[in-house]
């Protein structure tokens, strides 16, 4: 049972990495918190559901489509909102409020358009029957989602460390002002990061029906807390730390569900508070916090 919980935890952890990664990218590059992250995830899930029920599209195809569309949504959204936000006195704090407003708008529009019902996709879409890993039976849909998440994480890594734009992105992460002074088009770099972040949320949303069970218009807040827990445990602003954070989160969630199931929902909250208090810079982090 212990081994089973750990294996399932790692599988889930890869998925949670995907959930948190976009949020962390935005925080790292722009020092703002996108509280609408969970709602973009929800929209990705709705898109996958809609594409499947009307066109019969396979989730994998939906994921590709969602990436393209969400990047295209993210770029103008960045230029519309973020540069103005970053000029304000306390942009980190105000970003929480601004994106909360955006999240409310998204939630309201989705509820008006589609109603508040739960939506799900049949798990058999991603393969029938279990896969046996080290003696643990796991649904194929889980493995599939975990592998897709791992690929997305790998692609983000390659983008950040193997492309020119990625190098510029990391420069902006280190210091926005110095990057600007060296002649980097900070706004363009940030806009691309923002687009990628939203696309990552969308992809996570496509696989959400398989991992989380269903999609509802008001799931955003809970997802945000989870995503925040994951990236804080990892390290804010460090995309690789997110992988560690995701796996720690996934494994501890599975252990809680196995041994103390009725208290499992407490976990993201307690983990978040504990890490913030004991090691606010995250497990891999250098000191970034100004107290």
């Amino acid at each position, binding site marked *: 049972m212990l081994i089973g919980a750990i294996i399932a935890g790692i599988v889930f952890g890869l998925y949670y990495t995907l959930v948190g990664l976009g949020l962390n990218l935005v925080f790292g590059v722009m020092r703002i918190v996108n509280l609408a992250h969970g709602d973009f995830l929800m929209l990705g899930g709705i898109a996958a559901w809609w594409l499947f029920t009307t066109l019969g599209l396979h989730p994998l195809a939906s994921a590709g489509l969602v990436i393209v569309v969400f990047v295209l949504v993210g770029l103008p959204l960045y230029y519309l909102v973020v540069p103005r936000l970053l000029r304000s006195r306390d942009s980190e704090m105000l970003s929480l409020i*601004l994106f909360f407003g955006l999240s409310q708008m998204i939630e309201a529009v989705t509820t008006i358009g589609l109603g508040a019902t739960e939506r799900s996709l049949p798990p058999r879409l991603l393969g029938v029957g279990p896969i046996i890993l080290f003696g643990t039976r796991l649904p194929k849909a889980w493995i599939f989602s975990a592998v897709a998440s791992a690929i997305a994480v790998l692609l983000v890594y390659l983008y950040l460390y193997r492309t020119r734009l990625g190098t510029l992105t990391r420069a902006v992460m280190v210091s926005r002002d110095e990057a600007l002074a060296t002649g980097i088009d900070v706004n363009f770099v940030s806009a691309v990061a923002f687009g990628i972040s939203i696309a990552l949320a969308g992809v996570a949303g496509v696989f959400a029906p398989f991992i989380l069970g269903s999609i509802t218009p008001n799931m955003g807040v809970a997802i945000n*807390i989870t995503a925040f827990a994951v990236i804080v445990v990892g390290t804010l602003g460090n995309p690789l730390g997110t992988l560690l954070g995701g796996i720690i989160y996934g494994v501890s969630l599975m252990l809680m569900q196995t041994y103390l199931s009725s208290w499992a929902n407490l976990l993201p909250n307690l983990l*978040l508070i504990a890490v*913030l208090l004991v090691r606010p810079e995250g497990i891999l982090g250098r000191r970034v916090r100004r*107290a």
Partner: protein
Amino acid sequence: MRNTRIRRIVLDTGIAAAVVIAMGVARGVYSNELMLFNFIIFLALAQGLNIIYGFTGYLPFGYVGFYGAGAYGFALVVMHLHAPALIGMAAAGVAALVLAVILLPLLRLSGAYFAIASMAAAQAVYEIVANPDLEDITKGPYGVSLADVFAPAFSYYTALAILAATLLLVVWLRNSRFGMSLQAIRDDSISAAMAGVSVVRGRTIAWLLSALIAGLVGGVFAWHISVFYPDTAFDLSVSIFATVFLLFGGATTLCGPLLGVFILYGIYNVIGIAVPQYFQFTYGALIVLLVLFLPNGLVSLLTSRGIRVP
């Protein structure tokens, strides 16, 4: 100099008194008592949040945690000890203060970290209260019923008294040495500390006062409503509403949060009840526009021109 200060205090107190009297008279004139009660609740919560955000710069997204702790503090004492309602109110205040003391270390965090951590803390308290394993104590997710102490008029005027005390507290903070020192801490804690202001003490007092108000408001809510669920007592939208009202009007002032509640909650009661999503959308859009174009609230239209707003 001394005269202007006295004039300011009189003006601030006058505004506070006018609001309290208006809400007291309104109950006799207007029949929808629950709506008026909710106005009082949000007037008090927005001002309670004002004390911690307006004066110290900490924005607790999980402010509702204290409200819920107060509601359940009241409910537990009344349910299990069959105590009278006023003892329940004391328990509500104590419950919120205990939670605030437990969460004191969160004040070491700043900015977004603090906001999110406090939200997680409120969620954690909710998960504990609503846990089916604790059904014998808290009734878990199935909600509590407090019909024994149901007293609509008494609880209404108790809520009004809490509002009055809260408003006077804000008046005092705006005009006292302690309030000034809090604002100095908010603007630059290191300089304030060098000028001899006790930073930790100031923040702690503001945090406890703010939590106490939310706890008492939660307690009186439990008393007046008498049947509620953990989902209502820990509804995150309570924090959010209070935050938006506060920011819309303008923090650190007395009038700002009052205006925010009267205008926005007024609109909510006109258009929001029938189709909440339309209101939710308008609300979200308003927040976005507010942050982008008027980050210091309605009162900044005047204060930025050098006019003092009470």
